[in-house]
Structure formats: C-alpha cells, structure tokens
C-alpha cells in the first residue's frame, strides 16, 4: 500500500544516484516540484526518461543531475527551445548528455510494454526515418502470421516513476483526470513510484474522465499543492504561460540559470520530513 510521505522524504527514499527516473506528464500535471526536489537533493548520474522533456528536465539537465536522456520531443512547448538541453547536447555543459531518441508512438508503446510485463512492443513506426540508424533500441520484427515487417521497441521499466495527480485518499489511492497522458503506464512500468498530489482527501469522489491508481500499485504519495506549476492541474489551477516565456530568458544563459538555481531551488527550505 502506498505510504503518505513528505516530498523530501519520498525523493530521498525512492530516487538514488544512477537510477533511471521517469517524471511523466504530457503538458498537464507535470511533476515540477518533484523534479526540483531531486535537484535540491543533488542526485547524480540519472538516466532521465520522458516523452516530452520540457522545463523541469531542462532544469535537471542544467543542474547536472542527468547522465542520459531517453525521450521523443524536447522543447519549451509554445515557446521554443530548451537552452540547457541544447547546451548539454551541443557543448557538453555542465556534463555530456547521452541521448536515446524515439518517436512519441515508440515511447508510448515502450511504457505500455513496461506496464504490461512484456519485454517489447510492436508498432508501425520509424519507417524511412533516420532514427533507427542512431537509436539501438529500434529493431524490426516479422509478423508470424502475415510476414509483415514492423518496428519493435524494448519495454521501459524505470527504477522510479514520478507523476503529479489531482488527489489521493488517505489510503493512498490516486485519482487523475483531464489529459492523463502516459502517467498510469509510467507508474505501472516503474519498479517504484512517487505520486505528488494537489491534496489528500477523505474520499475520492468519482469524476468524469477520472482514472484511479489503486494504493497497492503506488509506492509513495506526497501532498504538494501547486506541485505541477508552471504546468496546470485541471480543476485546481491554469497553466502559467508567462512562466514558460520567463523560463526562456532564464535558461538561455548559464549565469542566469545558475543564479536561478541558487535562489529558487537551493535557496528554498527543504520541505519538512
């Protein structure tokens, strides 16, 4: 059964140096606070996994937490580039970043395979593109019934899956609604999981479009109101579009980024355990 812990405790317990960590969220419900707690706890040599690494991954990469990135689209959505990500790939700053690059369809199916206890997934994908040439985790497979050739990708089974959700009850059952992305799969594919939530409530009222992750499928739950900011939590707060613009100005230079890190991440008191 999921244990309800503080964010600092959850990260301390579940995320270790060298781990493969997926912080998932498809524009909606991105676990920003959890990402910044990982920076604050100075985790190193992480393999970061995410379909859409955006601001929080730019922060993790710029802060030197990552050794490798497994992804399908890395940008500042609606604004432009991720400058820390670019700086790492183009100039190896603050450290070289190995990349393993897929398409969304490939990544989504890798999570599905991981959640399903299968070693690989099959899809119609990557045909004619240059991705298979650079990504060892894209192979071909032949249908045993029709002889057709299709793409195969290996399951993703991160050490830790981290997502943000709207609510949990006191038993640790988690409820998510709105755009649910690939979050359920990321939790189910992972060996351990941390779910930050807007609030812990007595009872989970059913909600249209709601998805429930039972407590026994989650390792830790932490109450972190606003934990998805600057992304949004449907039913709680809107996307802070200005922050995405603001991030462009911060992330653009190493100096402004490091000043931001000192002030906004390391300058913030660790949440009490």
């Amino acid at each position, binding site marked *: 059964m999921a244990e309800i812990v503080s964010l600092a405790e959850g990260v301390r317990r579940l995320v270790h140096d060298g781990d493969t960590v997926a912080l998932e969220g498809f524009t909606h419900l991105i676990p920003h606070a959890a990402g910044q707690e990982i920076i604050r706890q100075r985790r190193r040599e992480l393999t970061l996994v995410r379909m859409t690494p955006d601001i929080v991954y730019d922060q993790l990469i710029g802060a030197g937490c990552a050794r490798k990135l497994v992804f399908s689209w890395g940008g500042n959505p609606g604004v432009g580039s991720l400058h820390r990500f670019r700086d790492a790939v*183009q100039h190896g700053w603050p450290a070289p970043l190995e990349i393993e690059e897929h398409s969304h*369809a490939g990544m*989504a199916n890798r999570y599905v395979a991981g959640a399903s206890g299968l070693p690989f997934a099959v899809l*119609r994908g990557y*045909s*004619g593109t240059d991705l298979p040439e650079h990504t060892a985790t894209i192979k071909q497979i032949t249908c045993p019934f029709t002889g*057709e050739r299709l793409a195969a990708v290996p399951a993703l089974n991160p050490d830790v899956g981290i997502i943000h959700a709207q609510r949990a009850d006191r038993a640790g059952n988690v409820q998510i609604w709105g755009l649910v*992305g690939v979050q359920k799969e990321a939790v189910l594919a992972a060996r351990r999981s941390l779910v930050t939530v807007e609030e812990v409530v007595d009872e989970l009222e059913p909600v249209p*479009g709601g998805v429930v992750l039972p407590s026994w499928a989650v390792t830790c739950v932490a109450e972190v109101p606003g934990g998805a900011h600057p992304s949004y939590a449907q039913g709680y707060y809107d996307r802070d579009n200005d922050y995405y613009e603001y991030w462009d100005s911060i992330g653009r230079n190493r100096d402004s980024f490091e000043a931001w890190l000192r002030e906004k991440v390391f300058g913030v008191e660790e949440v009490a355990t």
Partner: protein
Amino acid sequence: MSAVHAGTEAERAYTSDEMMSIAAARALRDDQRCFVGIGLPSTAANLARRSHAPNLVLIYESGTLGSKPGRLPASIGDGILAETADAVISVPEVFNYWLQPGRIDVGFLGAAQLDRFGNINTTVIGDYAQPKVRLPGAGGAPEIAASCREVFVVVRQSRRSFVDRVDFVTSFGHGRGRGDRERLGLRGAGPTLVITDLGVFRPDPETAELVLTRLHPGVEVEQVREATGWELVTSPDLSRTAEPTPEELAALRALKAASE
C-alpha cells in the same frame, strides 16, 4: 524570414503569415479528421473549423478527439483541448487506436527543414552526433506522416528551411522520389500539400518532387526561387492564391486575440 517580400506586405492589409495560415486553413475540408501539430498547423486547423469547416474533427496527440477550442491552444496539452473534446483518451491510445490504423484523414505538420521530396527534419541541423543546432526531435510526427491518409505541411519558407536534402529524416515524406513510400509499406499518401508564406507546393505526380503550384498575392516566382534550396520547378498550371477575405482575416485575428 518574411523579409523577402516585406515591401509588398506594407501595401497589403494582412501579413504573409496571415496569408499562410488562411491558405493552410482553406486546404482542410469539412468533416475531415485532422491530426494537428502545434504552432502553425494548429492555427490553420482551428481557423478552418471556425470558418468554412465547422465539423472538422481536431485530434491532438495529447489525447483529445474532437476538440473545439474557442481560442488557440497555448500548447498541444492546453486544458481547453480536453474540456471541449468529444473524448479524452490516453496518449498510448491516441497513437495505437486512432492514428496507427489509418483513421485520420489529414496530418497537419510543421517543419524546421523540409526537402524537395517533402521529408521533414525536426531533429538536428548538422551532424547527429555533433549537431550545429539541436532541435526538439520527433514527437508524434514520424507516425503522423506515415499513417494519416495525407499530410499537409505548413512552414515559413527560406533557403534555411527549404533544403535540397534534410540533415536528418525525422518524418518520411517521399524519400528520394515516387515509389519510396510504397516500397516501405507506408499506407498513407504522405505530403500532398506544402503551404508556405510565399505559395503552395504539391509533389509532382511522376517524380514526387515538390513543385510550386500557386503563388500568394504579390509574390513573384523569383522570390520563391530565392527562398528555395533546390532548383525550383513551377507547375505549368501555376495559379494565384485568392486574397484573404475580410471574414477569414477577422476569424483569424479573433482566434489569435482570444489567446492573448
């Protein structure tokens, strides 16, 4: 990038970007199912739905079928897309149940680089291992380009974006010519239309090379040639894009204003 024809724009009541979006919107027909990339494609698709194609079905990779946003979404995961959708589904479901089986009529994509055969690059400029510019990457585009019945690309045109050969094939267009898609077993027709701020291109029926078929108002072939990174071929039936109507301009501006 729109500097090339800045002179003509000054005399017009609309920008070349507005003409591009309106031309792109016109390409969509009512009742079609359109898989919408963010940015220029989203502007065009939403404009179409708000003008001549009210029943256009907008599908976003974030997991919405039939979104009806009243303003332009700030990203493909804007809450308004979910709130106004016929159905909200998971990301694996979008790709597996809806895109992959060929249920979508039009995939509407942008590009950082586009080549003469309609191949799209959104991955790197330069060498993959030592990139000059690292771009965001593939996202949903490779499978959108593969599985939609046809693909429309909307892109601002310049020698940087319109290249002879893309540095990296992120999304397969027509490869190195007609027949390459069939050889790969791809089911969709691939890019059938490219809309830029200068005009409209279609693949040649024989060679699959992109050919200029229409010029936007005030644009001359020479301007297009200067903004094309290969030996431009113009269609024998080269025509002119109709001027934006006041209604189209009003709809586009209202859509943009509502997003501020």
